[in-house]
């Protein structure tokens, strides 16, 4: 008989091995799914994973990986700090929206003034916007003990309505014939988050994502605050004894993740998206939760996880167009990734015991 036995110590090997195994299992079972749909599984898997990086048109897809991956990494880094400490910001999508609105608002208010100071001001506004939106659940939690999961999630829907209102009202392009949507910031030089090197995909959001990875790494491994985050998550009582201020930690973690999500929104609206539109948000704030866990809440891990998620999106779209795979199959494929990760993760804390001789 087979039983699960709790390990005395979480297994390091399983902890690092789980994402790799999860990817392998996803490829295997995803392949079966594609085969069941009548497609060549090898072709499908190669299209998703190989084509964007090494295929004929990789010169176009590689920059796209940066564009798709940067907001995921930026948001996930922020979320991981809180998640490590047991502070659950589920509302990054809302903070992403508010950051974008705050940043775009600065640009649209100053249009058509040209100045080198506009873009930095937008970055500041974007970070502040996201930070302020995250402060709502943070302050409510510290003052009244509300549940930050619910409050932050509900605020996503509030943010979506503010977004719709802005796209239809205050930020609507006055030259847009009554159609919703703001001016296109790509056509406003001072506000455009353009590629730093043309067509490289390397816009300021990518740079900030990389900086965030480095900062988070140093913070967690070298800084006292990083220690406080880790110890609070792993042993809350020990944290209390070691003088960690739990309220301060909540404000810091939610605030930082909000600010990073806001930055991601700002870089998106000023660059790849260009416009404040009703459907501006496409779920980065939620996908980043998957990225954070897929990356083991580790900054370097998150970098790879973000790249991997971006790859499945881009490769998935190629597979749809070239192989006729339905979008739903791609979504199932992405879902498998998290599913297998969580399943295999079990073995970090438990091990299988075979033939123990006891009856259950």
């Amino acid at each position, binding site marked *: 008989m087979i039983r699960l036995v709790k390990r005395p110590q979480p297994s390091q090997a399983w902890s690092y091995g789980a994402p790799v195994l999860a990817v392998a299992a996803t490829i295997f079972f995803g392949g079966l799914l594609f085969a069941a749909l009548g497609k060549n599984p090898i072709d499908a898997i190669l299209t998703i994973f190989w084509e964007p990086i090494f295929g004929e048109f990789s010169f176009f897809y590689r920059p796209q990986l940066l564009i798709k991956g940067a907001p995921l990494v930026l948001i996930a880094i922020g979320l991981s700090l809180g998640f490590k400490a047991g502070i659950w910001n589920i509302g990054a999508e809302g903070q992403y929206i508010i950051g974008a609105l705050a940043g775009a608002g600065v640009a649209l208010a100053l249009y058509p003034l040209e100045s080198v100071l506009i873009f930095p001001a937008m970055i500041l506004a974007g970070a502040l916007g996201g930070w302020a939106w995250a402060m709502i659940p943070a302050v409510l939690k510290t003052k009244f003990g509300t549940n930050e999961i619910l409050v932050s999630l509900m605020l996503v829907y509030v943010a979506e309505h503010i977004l719709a209102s802005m796209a*239809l009202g205050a930020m609507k392009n006055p030259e847009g014939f009554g*159609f*919703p949507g703001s001016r296109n910031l790509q056509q406003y030089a001072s506000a455009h988050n353009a590629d730093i090197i043309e067509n490289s995909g390397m816009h300021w959001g990518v740079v900030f994502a990389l900086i965030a990875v480095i900062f988070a790494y140093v913070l967690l491994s070298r800084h006292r605050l990083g220690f406080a985050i880790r110890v609070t998550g792993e042993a809350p009582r020990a944290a209390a004894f070691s003088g960690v201020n739990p309220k301060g930690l909540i404000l810091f973690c939610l605030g930082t993740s909000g600010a990073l999500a806001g930055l991601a929104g700002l870089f998106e609206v000023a660059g790849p*998206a*260009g*416009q404040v539109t009703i459907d501006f948000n496409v779920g980065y704030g939620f996908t980043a939760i998957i990225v954070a866990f897929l990356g083991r809440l580790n900054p370097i891990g998150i970098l790879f996880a973000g790249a991997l998620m971006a790859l499945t999106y881009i490769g998935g*779209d190629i597979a749809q*167009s*070239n192989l006729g795979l339905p979008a739903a199959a791609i979504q199932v494929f992405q879902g498998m990734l998290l599913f297998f990760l969580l399943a295999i993760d079990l073995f970090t804390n438990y091990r299988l015991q075979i033939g123990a001789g006891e009856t259950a």
Partner: protein
Amino acid sequence: MNFTKLLATAAVALGLAGAAVAQDKTKVGFVYVGPVGDGGWTFEHNEGRLAVEEHFGDAVETVFVENVAEGPDSERVMTQMALEGADLIFTTSFGYMDPTINVAKKFPNVKFEHATGYKRADNVSTYSARFYEGRAVQGHIAGKMTKTNTVGYIGSFPIPEVIRGINSAYLHAKKVNPDVEFKIIWVYTWFDPAKEADAAKALIDQGADVVLQHTDSTAPQAAAQEAGDVMTFGQASDMAEYGPFPRVSSIIDNWAPYYIARTQAVIDGSWSSVDTWDGIPTGMVEIGEITDAVPADIKAEALAMVEAMRTGAYHPFTGPIKKQDGSDWLADGETADDGTLAGMNFYVEGITGDIPQ
């Protein structure tokens, strides 16, 4: 090497590699905002794609990507199709407008067709359908049939196309039933069965016994069916599976003739950038079968209206019509011009509530 050069090189390489196989095969791409199984908007565009495949057989290859978010994702998908050798790309949602223009600039030899937008270029056409003609028919039937004098309307986004539909339906309901009232709920989505069902239920709770929808799923039909005595109309697609009641008729977008004609134009080399806005006369808008749940005399009136629009004898926006604020819009006998209709951002007199800002 800069991007344009790279693209050119890639195109040449493609041309050489694919010369033997793909030289006379025209490749047509479709970018969809929803899933092809939505039963509404995207479903009908996909029907159009299938009609292209059937019409041209081996001469044409089509590809599509569904569920493409408006914004950078759509730009990537369009670029991907152009790189893979598409000659003509249909982008079938309003939000694809700026992305279509961006990608079209990079691929001057690829033709683009953007649905429901207003930005054109040498290689970008726009096309849309005069759905408001169908709304007039729905308004007429709704006004005649409602017993509670309350008509519910599920709006997607408060953009001119949707506001035009509301105005057209209201004017024609009011004409046959002065006591009729419209209740409008905005759901801010084109396709979200859960939200659409909630909106339908809320409208029914408020006394609506006719529910019109400008969203793409069949969820409102199901909600009406559950309520039992509530009438609906199919939107974008026939939704005949909900007939003969609650669904009593429908507006069908028939894109097939247009898609075939434009593909033919690319094959012939006669394609040029145009702005197409067709309705009942050309068959781009069709009225789905009016079921027997509608009394014969009302059905006859509705069909007469369809015929009058088909011949051009009747325009749904014919004065006298005032705006909601009481100011004059159209004088007696005057018909609305396309410019005003295209950018319509006001309700007509009698509709209560404000357009969300």
